[in-house]
């Protein structure tokens, strides 16, 4: 009897272990369902569609400003294109700033630097990665904004350049860490063969190692891009939050994520505005999800390439 009791208890614990393995899959599924559920009325409810249907969100409207996001004005306007543009502008600045720096640093530490440099740089990058985004946002708002304003001679204190650079600081550790992993994973024999053929250190790094690690490096860039699109607090604090339809980087911008963060607290639950904010959340989820799958696919290619060659 007693062993039977122990066995069934053991069965129960093992069932729990098996069950919890599904938690991540279940979590992703629930996120999609419960955010999508609140976004759905934008497509289905007649009341929400009248005020904020897809055509109102994406197509130009009549009036002096065809694209405007003014959800709390007397006649609410819900064009999300300025927000898309805002996210794109800030992300672009962040990527252009972060990716060259991170890749350059990864190449230096994995190919040229003596070991002690690597031992020194890794903890510093981890430090940077450990800075909470609200702290980076605070820094961009209080300190960096004035520096950027002076350096580029911009009228507005908070703008896309400022937010983009701060966002870049959050992206650098992600890109660096993954790119460094990809470069270090290239077998030593590649480098030895190249050096034996008379190639210089730089030629080996740029013509042999870098191309071999390319799928992993692309994955690093894609993941950095995904982080930049979804990051909220930095952009919310450092961008000025004005939904303007312009490509000018020196103007204040409002991103998709910052809009959700700034407006969901005050919105009437169940109103069209509420559902539009959840739709924006759904879009952010779908974008980043697709980017993650894409990055994953690159990493798999890298593994196959290197395993196949070794």
């Amino acid at each position, binding site marked *: 009897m007693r062993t039977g009791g122990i066995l069934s208890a*053991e069965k129960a614990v*093992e069932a729990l*272990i098996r069950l*919890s*393995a*599904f*938690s*991540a899959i279940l*979590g*992703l599924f*629930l*996120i999609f369902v*419960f*955010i999508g559920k*609140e976004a759905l009325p934008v497509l289905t409810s007649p009341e929400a569609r009248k005020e904020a249907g897809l055509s109102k969100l994406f197509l130009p409207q009549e009036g002096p400003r065809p694209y405007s996001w003014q959800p709390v004005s007397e006649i609410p306007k819900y064009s999300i294109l300025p927000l898309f543009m805002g996210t794109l502008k800030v992300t672009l600045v962040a990527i252009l700033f972060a990716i*060259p*720096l*991170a890749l*350059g*640093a990864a190449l230096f530490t994995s190919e*040229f630097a003596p070991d002690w440099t690597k031992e020194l*740089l890794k903890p*510093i990058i*981890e*430090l940077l990665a*450990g*800075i*909470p*985004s*609200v*702290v980076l946002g*605070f*820094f961009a*708002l*209080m*300190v960096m904004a004035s520096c950027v304003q002076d350096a580029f001679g911009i009228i507005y204190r908070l703008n896309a350049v400022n937010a983009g650079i701060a966002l870049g*600081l959050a992206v650098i550790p992600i890109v*660096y860490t993954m790119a460094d992993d990809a470069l270090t994973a290239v077998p030593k024999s590649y480098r030895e063969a190249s050096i034996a053929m008379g190639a210089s*250190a*730089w*030629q080996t790094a*740029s013509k042999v190692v870098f191309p071999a690690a390319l799928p992993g490096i692309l994955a690093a860039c894609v*993941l950095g891009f995904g982080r930049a699109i*979804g*990051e*909220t*607090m930095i952009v*919310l*604090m450092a961008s000025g939050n004005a939904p303007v339809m312009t490509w000018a980087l020196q103007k204040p911008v409002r991103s998709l*994520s910052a809009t*959700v*963060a700034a407006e*969901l607290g005050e919105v009437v639950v169940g109103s069209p505005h509420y559902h539009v904010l*959840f739709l924006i*959340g759904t879009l*952010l*989820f779908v974008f*980043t*999800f697709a*980017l993650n799958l894409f990055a994953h696919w690159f990493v798999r290619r890298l593994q196959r390439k290197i395993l196949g060659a070794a």
Partner: protein
Amino acid sequence: MGRFFIALSALCCAVIVAMTAFVLGDIAYFGWEKLTLSFLLAAPEQGMAAGGIFPAIFGTFFLVLIMTVAVIPLGVMTAVYLNEYAPKHSRLVQWVRLAIANLSGVPAIVFGLFGLGFFIDFVGKGMDAAFFGSRLVFGQPAILWAALTLALLTLPTVVVATEEALRAIPDSHREVAYSLGATRLQMVRRVVLPQAIGGILTGGILAVSRGAGEVAPILFTGAAYFLPYLPKKLNDQFMELGYHIYVMATQSPDVEATKPILYSTVFVLLALTFVLNFTAIWVRSRIRRRLRLAK
């Protein structure tokens, strides 16, 4: 030519280090200035322009405590399944790993929306309807819901760290346990988990450090701008360091007056996350050394 590019790549390193030093140096310099013990132990006064941040520190600790209680068992069991139970390279394992990687890429603000839509509106309101006669008890922003939202956000951190520790345990240890007649669960409990305690600790510490710094997921799930009391029950709202920083930096009527307090608060949050991170790095490096020895 080659030399030039190598120098350029070294410059990239230097720029990253310089920028990190600039951020940390600025915060350390101005944050340390006004930091006193009474600042840590007093409540805010005069609309945040005076007083301390004790309620925010207390709220942060309470929040990450609940989060840890939720995420550690779930994360450890997931890692145990992946490494000890599932057949290697099975389709299911690949799906779970993919889901974990994807979960860690979901934007923090999306977790905030999820916490509101799932925990508060679905679970909380459902509990109120079922147990409290539709009285508003759990169907509102609360520390429990914020903590559970953060638990889901930090789940990948715990799983990845635990798995690394599980992999560091040599297979011979498992085989010895089996040869002595242990069942799989006995082997996991007596042989694998005691050795993996460092990895579980690392995962927990990293999760706490991440959870203490995230603001976007708690914006709508329970964080409050100002509360005259400390949270005592699971359905209380709470003050939190990161949220406190956000509110003071963006919504203060007099930024110059709150600036010293703001800097000190940032310093406290940063010090907290760094102490946690360095502890985790230290524990992890010890595990990695053992992993190398085991091979």
